[in-house]
């Protein structure tokens, strides 16, 4: 069925390692690396690479080097932000955590798990476009609020949240509430230095930017209290113990650097390809809806579509058989697709979200990929469509 070609349109799940990153990591690995806490030369070399990476990450996300805490990835960063902030607030006093209704499970489940006798959690609704309702958010924030978590861009839909306005809203209601943004999905295309400037805590990772899996960072702005959640040797200025992944940090820095250099051009290029795919599918496949209404700001690589009369599980299998890699959104631990709470929060009807598919383009996506998708997807959809 497939000619062996693979059209990878699942960058939001993980973005292939950029060649520049592989080169930087290979270079780091070429000479002996010690434990960065040691005193001999290989240790000092490791320490140098680590701190060079930290400087670079800080520069690229718009913070000071001392504000960068390296972690194992986005999920750890999110958990550290949520639990670390709560652990640093005075115990026993009623405390609340507020998050948007469309947060990634790394944030959402951390908030859920953080609930206790004194910690409550509530979700701020989003509108039909998936954008947070600032009025409703304001209502939920008060003096007891310790943390407000609003992602910079949504992993399923690509919808970009007005983080500056979120931060202003929170500050107007509380002098002590911390603003945390999960910027994992946004990092490849958006300038965190600019758009995440209002956040006290920023989570990012490597593999969504064309860097390696297994490395991430949490930006903890100076003056923000954070209690370590992982105890040991006191690395990362006692905010995250454990021997640092030096080569991972080198990869993360290289990925962020490459993404930053390409940012403007890549955004335009990928956005144009995405629009061509969207318009092409709308023309060649009837009864397909863009989940995010026109005019809403999304990441340039995201195209979220709902195909009427299609079961997304079937569409994904049929596309996979023909070498087209897309995603159905959220999966559970077994790998089975689940009903998307993100789409539900946007008020997308179940009948429509059954046929919801996410195509995400990224740094390696070419015009030929889009040609191939436009050649294959319409026929596959037609073969699978059944009458409602």
């Amino acid at each position, binding site marked *: *069925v497939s000619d062996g070609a693979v059209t990878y349109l699942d960058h939001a799940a993980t973005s292939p390692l950029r060649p520049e990153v592989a080169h930087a990591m290979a270079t780091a690995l070429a000479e002996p690396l010690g434990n960065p806490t040691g005193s001999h030369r290989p240790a000092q070399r490791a320490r140098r690479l680590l701190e060079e990476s930290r400087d670079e990450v800080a520069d690229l996300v718009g913070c000071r080097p001392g504000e960068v805490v390296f972690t194992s990835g986005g999920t750890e960063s999110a958990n550290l932000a949520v639990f670390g902030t709560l652990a640093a607030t005075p115990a026993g006093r009623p405390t609340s955590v507020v998050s948007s209704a469309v947060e990634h499970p790394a944030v959402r489940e951390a908030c859920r798990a953080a609930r206790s006798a004194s910690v409550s959690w509530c979700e701020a609704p989003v509108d039909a476009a998936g954008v947070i309702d600032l009025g409703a958010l304001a209502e939920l924030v008060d003096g007891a609020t310790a943390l407000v978590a609003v992602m910079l861009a949504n992993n399923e839909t690509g919808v970009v949240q007005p983080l500056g306005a979120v931060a202003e809203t929170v500050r107007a209601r509380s002098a002590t509430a911390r603003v945390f943004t999960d910027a994992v999905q946004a990092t490849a295309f958006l300038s965190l230095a600019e758009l995440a400037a209002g956040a006290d805590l920023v989570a990012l990772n490597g593999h969504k930017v064309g860097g390696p899996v297994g490395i991430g960072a949490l930006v903890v702005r100076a003056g923000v209290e954070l209690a370590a959640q992982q105890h040991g040797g006191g690395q990362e200025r006692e905010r995250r113990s454990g021997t640092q992944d030096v080569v991972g940090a080198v990869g993360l820095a290289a990925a962020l650097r490459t993404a930053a250099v390409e940012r403007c051009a890549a955004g335009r290029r990928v956005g144009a390809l995405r629009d061509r795919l969207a318009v092409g599918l709308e023309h060649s496949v009837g009864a397909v809806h863009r989940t995010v209404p026109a005019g809403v700001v999304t990441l340039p690589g995201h195209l979220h579509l709902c195909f009427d009369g299609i*079961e997304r*599980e*079937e569409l*994904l*299998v*049929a596309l*996979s*058989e023909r070498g087209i890699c897309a995603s159905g959104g959220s999966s*559970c*631990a*077994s*790998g*089975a*697709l*689940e009903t998307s709470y993100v789409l539900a929060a946007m008020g997308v009807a179940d009948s429509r979200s059954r046929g919801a598919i996410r195509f995400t383009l990224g740094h390696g996506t070419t015009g030929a990929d889009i040609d191939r998708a436009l050649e294959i997807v319409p026929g596959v959809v037609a*073969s*699978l469509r*059944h009458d409602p």
Partner: protein
Amino acid sequence: MSGGVDSSVAAALLVEAGHDVVGATLKLWGGPSDSGCCSVADVDDARRVAQQLGIDHHVFNLTEEFERQVVTPYVQAHASGRTPNPCIECNRSIKFDRLLERSDRLGFDRLATGHHARVSPDGPLRLLRGADGAKDQSYVLSMLGQAELGRVLFPVGEMHKADVRAHAARLGLRTAGKPDSQDVCFIGSVEGRQGFLSDKLAFHAADVVNGRGEPVGTVDAVELVTLGQRRGMGHGTDGGRHYVVAVDVPARRVTVGSAAEAVISAVVLPAATVTWVDRPLVDGARAVAQVSAHGRPAPCAVVRTGDGLLVQFDVPQRPVAPGQTVALYDDADPDAVVGAGIAA
């Protein structure tokens, strides 16, 4: 591919025969269960076997359909004193309906499973018992007809279980030594049927009476009592064990009797529940009935009545609980299923 050894080897045999095979695991149940066919560990096993065989693997989430078509009817049936077989309902409405339809739509020629049964291709398709009599699963497939049988494959149906395991071991599949699943997949072995139903159903205490209507005891949950049940029913004055001969849920009454009294000579299968593998039996035809997955086959005559079938046993049998499937096998070839129905 359930993550068990039979479906693992079924997939392996098809790959070895040169077919273009894709593995699929159904996620049917989201609730807590340690024994079933869709825990994360089982999905992981199925996926790993698919990797070892070099085939693609997908997980299909049919939990909504399973809840609607298998679990909810299972609970409702207990509320009205019926004892359904959820595996049969899953085969009927999920595996050989929903999944078969999906497999067709995706362009596959056949849907293969790891069931121990055989399809004989001479003339009209026949559904036969698996070659390993101890593992035969034709009973839980007895509702299949020509339309389904023409689109399915049971690759391990010709094999004995020991050979299935040996084949898996030769291939180094991690499922080779995995214990057989025994229970209903959505019911954990710790909570049991009672624990599972207790969240979803109000249990009612009932009086236990003998054939003369005299009270002889009580039960805590009439909904959990099955016709023919012996456990918990005590003994008669003669010291013989008591068996349940009637369950009246609305009246909250269980009637018990001696082993000699707890027998039936016939069972009614309403027309709406009756299915035929090929052609219906003629009125009065001889057949062999099986009333549970590994029940002893019972010779019978099948009489057509106005509203279904009357299965008349040659030798009186333990009572058949309402909701239980009765599979009918060919009198001339007791390995061949001819049809099935659900006891009224």
